């Protein structure tokens, strides 16, 4: 028996469903139930303001339905014209803020049904889209920023764009529904050569990294490409498969998993390899039990050897043996960096990735003065202004200052990220971005009292176990369980190559702080050679090595 979602996809006529009818229904701010599944493939999640849910029900009003829209930004880079269009949407259509995501995408919240078409049309006007930003397809392809820093990164960006394009669904539904494109002449949807009529069993995530930076958390992805450099040339990629963060509380059948390195391919083979990895998952992924549908379970159920053999049988030539590589960190580097070409790039910390209206106004000053800069969304939901000529640096700094983005934050805060959760995300069980800054205040005090105020221990928080902020590779991961209560995971390695382990369950703030304080104090006293917190807790057996 396949799931509801499978039935809806199959019957959707290339992701059309009844979205057009839903959009013009004046009696509800929602779209039809089946369409909420399909809208995700168009980058749109129906949500409601959960803070108002009960109040409105008492008022005999439907929930305050609103939509979250995500725009794809392959590799996280966009032009000034595109940036300005994105900020215009925040001002005129959404709740006033612009959210940079952990997958280098733009996200808007609080958009009403009537705002959907204007929003997508604005995005289209600057040659971007929201297609496949969510849904059971390949999502936004991530890549280590930034292409201007070196020719290696430029090459990486080229590969990223090509791969993103290659895996984009072919359906015309997007144009038809949102851009008033022509309707299908016959009621025959377009063929999807890579996905087929039911698309994938579950979401599919890809990232590309160049060591030593693992900011894209390549091991947390269904499919990853680790750039291998020889003699200053990007000669190819190690291929990784089977990573994924999502889990369900209390269900041992679901778990986070790190990807396995299965071989090496040349840059020109990336699209070919990706297409066939997608193909194996399309054909063998679990379509009966949705929470077991990610590729990590396909691999665990059938074995990695089987997977590699199946993949190789489909490839022009089997993957070559993997090369050696070494990652240093999975967090961002802040401040100015000079690129190979003499242009400068500045990365700033954006709390929770959310830019508010006044910050967007200040950033517009950069766009006006230096229209040729690029805007880069980092995988840790921060922002980089790139391609700045040396004499433009002062302007950039002044405007970032005006936006409140130049203030000094502790390394602890700068290494922390949180997902959105309350009040808009329907999955959230506890606060995340509205609460993490407060918890970090407290943890800063704990680290300072322990004598390590300079610690950059990686802290990540999500409001539910699905893992959007990749909490299971953090040194300290908080996973929401109920309002005000979190599971605490310890033991990442600061490089995204180790899963952490559940250390304490269902803890409130006081319990979290009281529990962590002695551990942090002990680490500060006993660590060897600047040993990271997450490494130390595993070495000393405070948590067991993840299986």
């Amino acid at each position, binding site marked *: 028996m396949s799931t509801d979602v499978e039935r809806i996809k199959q019957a959707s006529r290339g992701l059309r469903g009844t979205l057009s009818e839903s959009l013009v229904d004046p009696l509800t701010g929602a779209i039809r139930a089946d369409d909420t599944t399909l809208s995700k493939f168009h980058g749109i999640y129906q949500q409601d303001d959960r803070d108002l849910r009960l109040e409105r*029900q008492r008022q*005999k009003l439907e929930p305050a339905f609103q939509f979250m829209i995500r725009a794809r930004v392959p590799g996280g880079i966009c032009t000034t014209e595109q940036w300005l269009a994105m900020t215009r949407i925040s001002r005129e259509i959404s709740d006033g803020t612009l959210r940079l995501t952990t997958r280098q995408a733009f996200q808007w919240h609080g958009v*009403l049904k009537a705002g959907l078409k204007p929003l997508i049309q604005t995005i289209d006007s600057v040659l971007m889209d929201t297609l496949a930003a969510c849904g059971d397809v390949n999502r936004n392809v991530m890549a280590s920023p930034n292409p201007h820093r070196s020719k290696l990164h430029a090459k990486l960006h080229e590969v990223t764009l090509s791969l993103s394009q290659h895996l984009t669904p072919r359906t015309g539904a997007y144009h038809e529904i949102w851009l008033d494109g022509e309707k299908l002449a016959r009621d025959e949807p377009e063929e999807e050569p890579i996905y087929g009529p039911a698309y994938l069993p579950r979401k599919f995530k890809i990232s590309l990294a160049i060591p030593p930076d693992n900011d894209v958390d390549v091991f947390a992805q269904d499919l990853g490409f680790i750039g291998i450099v020889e003699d200053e040339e990007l000669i190819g990629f190690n291929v990784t498969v089977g990573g994924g963060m999502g889990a369900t509380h209390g269900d041992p059948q679901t778990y986070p998993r790190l990807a396995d390195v299965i071989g090496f391919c040349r840059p020109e083979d990336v699209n070919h390899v990706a297409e066939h990895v997608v193909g194996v998952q399309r054909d063998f992924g679990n379509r009966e039990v949705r929470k077991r549908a990610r590729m990590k379970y396909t691999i665990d159920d059938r074995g990695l050897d089987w997977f590699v053999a199946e993949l190789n049988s489909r490839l022009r030539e089997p993957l070559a043996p993997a090369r050696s590589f070494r990652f240093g960190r999975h967090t961002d580097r802040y401040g100015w960096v000079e690129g190979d070409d003499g242009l400068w790039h500045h990365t700033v910390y954006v709390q929770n990735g959310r830019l508010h209206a006044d910050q967007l106004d200040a950033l517009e000053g950069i766009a006006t003065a230096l229209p040729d800069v690029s805007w880069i969304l980092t995988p840790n939901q921060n922002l980089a202004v790139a391609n700045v000529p040396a004499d433009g640096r002062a302007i950039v700094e002044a405007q970032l200052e005006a936006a409140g983005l130049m203030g000094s934050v502790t390394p602890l805060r700068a290494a922390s990220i949180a997902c959105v959760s309350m009040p808009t995300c329907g999955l959230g069980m506890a606060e995340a971005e509205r609460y993490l800054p407060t918890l970090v205040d407290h943890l800063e005090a704990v680290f300072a009292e322990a004598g390590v105020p300079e610690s950059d221990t990686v802290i990540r928080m999500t409001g539910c176990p699905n893992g959007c902020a990749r909490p299971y590779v953090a040194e300290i991961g908080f996973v929401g369980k109920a309002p005000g209560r979190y599971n605490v995971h310890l033991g990442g390695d600061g490089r995204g190559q180790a899963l952490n382990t559940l250390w304490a369950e269902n803890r409130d703030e006081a319990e979290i702080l009281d529990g962590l304080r002695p551990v942090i104090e002990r680490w500060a006293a006993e660590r060897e050679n600047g040993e990271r917190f997450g490494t130390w807790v595993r070495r000393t057996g405070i948590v067991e090595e993840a299986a």
Partner: protein
Amino acid sequence: MATPDPAAFAPLPDTQFHELQQLAAALRPEQLWWTSGYLAGLAQSGVQAPQAIPAASELAAATIVYATQTGNSRRIAEQLADRLAGQDVRLVSAGDYRLADLPKERQIVFVVSTHGEGDPPDDAVPFFERLLSKRAPKLEDVRYAVLSLGDSSYEKFCEVGRVLDERLAELGGQPLVDRVDCDVEFEDAAARWIDQLEADLDLSQPSNVVPMRAALPAAPRITRDAPLTGEVLEVQDITGRGSTSDTFHVEIAADGLAYEPGDSVGVWHDNPVLVVEQVLAATGLAGDAVVRVGDEETTLALALTSKRELTGLSRAVIERYVAVTRNDALEAWFGGLERAEQAEILDGWQFADLAKAYPGEVSAQALVDLLAPLKPRLYSIASALGGDEVHLTVSRVSYERDGEPRVGAASNWLGDLDAGAAVQLFVEPNAAFHLPEDPATPVIMIGAGTGVAPFRAFVQARSEAGAPGDNWLIFGHRNFRTDFLYQLEWQRALKGGDLARLDVAFSRDGDERRYVQHVVADQAAELMAWLDRGAHIYICGAIAMGKAVEAALVAAVDASGGDGEAVVSELKAERRLHRDVY
């Protein structure tokens, strides 16, 4: 216990015996004699009196109610419903379930989940609040079962199911099977529970007894001057945050208040403190001055609060105020106004406005004597559920005049009442606004703002009666997001067929102002088709809106090639066009 409890020997359940005792205590001797004969007559008349047979005619043999957050409870409920497919079983979410149906159920099955700190799923919160409140009905003949989902890593594991189970038992329900508490891996336990229920549910058709309503003797008449004392059950805002209007829904327990949909209820209110203080300030009088009202001695403040009309102004009051204060300026000014201007003043001013604009010397007693007695306010009744409740839809009147706040007396008094407060009520019949005799006649209901109130009563009544006629509601207000009064109920009615059509117009949402009359214009063809089928049209709302809708009707008929004026007057002559405008 010193004396044996008589209830223990009575052939009635405790609660009924208690009610009988209460009734008997309130009756005069001749009424007691009459009642004994009436009840004996009922017993002998050969017609089956309403026994403890549930009114099962419209309810299924078993109802499955789910309360779900993540969908697990719903899926289990659906599995059970699938298993019982083809039999007389109803599946409904707790958010959609009417608590009033609960005592009428034969068998009811709950699948509920617990979240966070022992909380029910969001949409089930009101259901549980009501079930746990003292308004919950008694369940003497209801058999029930509960499957409870939860996560044992939480402290309050399966709390909601446990509380539900205990409450249903407390209300008198009889368990069908024992409650089962399921952990995260619920599938097996749920499957076993479904098996057991399938075996234990009685899905045979109920005996074909239609409970009849015995003709009741006339209750003591409730009138304007002999009102009924009702008890406020709930005052609930029904416009959302950010609304430009403040509209609330009042539910009042009004045992014995007989009314028909379309009727109004009269409410005896007190003047709010602010209104009284403004009159005292404008006249310079002290609230504690002693005055006589009829035979009663009281203070001026109390007299102004509950005996005198302060927010409505009449020509007679102005004349008496002129006479008492010898205010020639006022007389000259008001007398010099055109009739229409005078009407505007009488409509828009409160007494405090008059006394402030034209101050004059007046004693406390003279003030009480010159003011008119307090008048009750009429509200269209917004309910028809029976159950001895009356619901009102009230818009709070509140505005500024010359920088000072002014409030409407009754709307603010009602809006500030707490549950449990007493309200004096009577029914003001509105025969011209009743539903068509024939339940098969289609009705078109056009209402703006609180003008939608009687249509809530209409739809409830036609639904309850199973009336086959189609119902079409055209509703208008300012903003979709905040002012779609009773939105959830209308959506449900449309889904369930109690509304055949629902059209809306929100005037402040788009660039152009769209009102109900624009819907009438847009839907002219459909409207004509309904009229051809004999539809009645009901219009409720402000006077201007009523006129605009009528004009749109005329235009709609004209547009379809008919003679608009003639058709509309014919509709009126046939009593098919009904208006309740204010």
